[in-house]
């Protein structure tokens, strides 16, 4: 294991630029590398990779490995795994960081499976244990209701995917110097077992749940599909997005894509309004990052009041009409 040296960041390129999460990872990686007294390297894949190498250096990389191959322009699980595994096999990094993104969630486990390292997914914090020099990864477990710290004592590389926006982006310094290394060899098309046939972008109607500044979520207590319209009305009056708990989705009142919580989406709006939902563990984990939580529930013992900043203890059916009407009135004034 002592042959493994250096901190690596597997970069992502979106619209011809380094992805924001990659810039964040370069900041984290730089700190870890400094603590270990080792180099920070970035791996960039795709035909645009070379053009972004200097940018990665400006954000903190000492070395940038560039794999320029048209077959890497769009994410292909087999191709990326092949290239990254070959390179890690040769360069033996001690630490490999990826974003907890569409790419990272797929690539990290496969790459780790091939390399036999130790991987922690969806990390919120990364640090170095001063005594052992091992990577310590903190990640949410049980739907965010607990945090676990994980260590790989001997398996290498130590891998982690990090959630976007958990750390500030690295500071750019264009005077930084670094080395650009072109990766030899191309992807073997015969080794690509899974083919990407097409990529479909789905346009979301209205405001995207994850991007909304206001989210109004209804729970099982809404009681019927007709009453669900009251949740939608309130969301509209606030210019926000509609969310739903798992029970509400199970009832068919809302699309599965609107589910907030552990098996749905994680949201962190400025304002989160929870209507007729109890605040089960699986749901709370999806909205705890909200700046202000407002709960409307007729049961004053409901758990949602334990996490809410403002609450109304009442039957939502009696309160929502006046609330929505007043908000509309204030908006038009």
């Amino acid at each position: 294991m002592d042959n493994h040296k250096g901190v690596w960041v597997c970069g992502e390129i979106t619209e011809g630029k380094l992805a924001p999460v990659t810039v964040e990872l370069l900041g984290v990686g730089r700190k870890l590398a400094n603590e270990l007294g080792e180099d920070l390297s970035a791996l960039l894949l795709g035909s645009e990779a070379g053009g972004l190498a200097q940018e990665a250096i400006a954000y903190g990389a000492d070395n940038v490995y560039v794999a320029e191959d048209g077959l890497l322009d769009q994410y292909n699980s087999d191709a990326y795994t092949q290239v990254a595994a070959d390179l890690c096999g040769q360069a033996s990094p001690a630490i490999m960081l990826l974003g907890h993104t569409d790419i990272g969630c797929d690539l990290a486990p496969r790459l780790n499976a091939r390399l036999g390292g130790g991987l922690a997914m969806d990390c919120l914090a990364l640090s170095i244990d001063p005594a052992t020099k091992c990577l310590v990864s903190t990640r949410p477990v049980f739907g965010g209701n607990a945090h676990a710290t994980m260590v790989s004592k001997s398996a290498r590389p130590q891998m982690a995917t990090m959630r976007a926006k958990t750390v500030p982006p690295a500071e750019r310094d264009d005077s930084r110097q670094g080395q650009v290394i072109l990766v030899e060899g191309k992807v073997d098309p015969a080794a690509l077992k899974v083919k990407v046939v097409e990529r479909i972008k789905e346009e979301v109607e209205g405001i995207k749940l994850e991007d909304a500044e206001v989210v109004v979520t209804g729970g099982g207590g809404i009681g019927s599909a007709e009453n669900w319209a009251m949740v939608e009305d309130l969301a509209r009056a606030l210019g926000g997005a509609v969310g739903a708990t798992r029970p509400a989705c199970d009832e068919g009142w809302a699309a599965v894509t609107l589910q907030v919580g552990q098996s749905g989406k994680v949201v962190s709006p400025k304002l989160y309004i929870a209507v007729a939902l109890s605040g089960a563990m699986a749901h709370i984990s999806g909205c705890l990052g909200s700046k202000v939580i407002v709960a409307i529930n007729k049961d004053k013992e409901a758990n949602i009041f334990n996490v809410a900043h403002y609450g109304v203890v009442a039957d939502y059916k009696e309160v929502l009409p006046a609330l929505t009407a007043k908000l509309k009135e204030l908006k038009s004034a």
Partner: protein
Amino acid sequence: MNIIVCVKQVLDPEIPPARFQIDPEAKQVIPPPGVPPVISVYDERAVEAACRLKDAHQGKITVISMGSEQAADVIKHAISMGADDGFVLSDPAFENLDSFGTAHVLSKAIQKIGEYDLVLCGREAADWGAGQVGSILAEMLGIPVVTRASDIQAADETLRVKRVVSDGFEVLEAPMPSLVTVSSEIGLPRLPAGVRLMMVRRKQIPVWNAGDIGAEPSQLDQANAHTEITGLSVPTRKTTECEIITGATPDETGVNLALKLAELI
């Protein structure tokens, strides 16, 4: 079409957080009394995906679950949804395995079952959520993997899989056999059929231990674990009290809340 589905029995995530308690010393969660464990939500969708393929193409669904002998309950749940057969993988040596150890046990059980065209897993477990057993398992079995499926179709030895990404989906083609991990976007799992529920109640679910599946002792040795949990804690939640908004009538309460919200946004 022969499908093997890997499922896990977990703490019911729909409990109120007040009932969620951990033992920080043991780095374990204390199961709340009186709350039966459930099939992990994504794994239930994996069973659903298997049932849809069986509806379209016929075949056999075999479900495996590593855990305590109580995991027979999730096998029975899967059978009541439409699976044909199942095995519990239970052995003291399987306790507290990391993702590699878990994948090893599953791979050995799958090799013992033998023929298969497709292996399905949930995209991650609802408890520890490591999110990597499926990928390691595919690597151990030497088959391709597609993660986060929202739809799986099969035709002429090829699987056509929709993979969920943040701004839409990808359509992928994979050969058989492959491993696919299933996401919740696949849609609601079917309710167990009443007749099957009755039938399954008395069914004995065989239990396989380490020897039965030929697991390698070195792969189960905690000293060879790839990852180790060194700490478990419950994060501190907000400390402010909840301010209750009131009014003389429900309408007035609604208006007062509207005024408060107007201040906030």
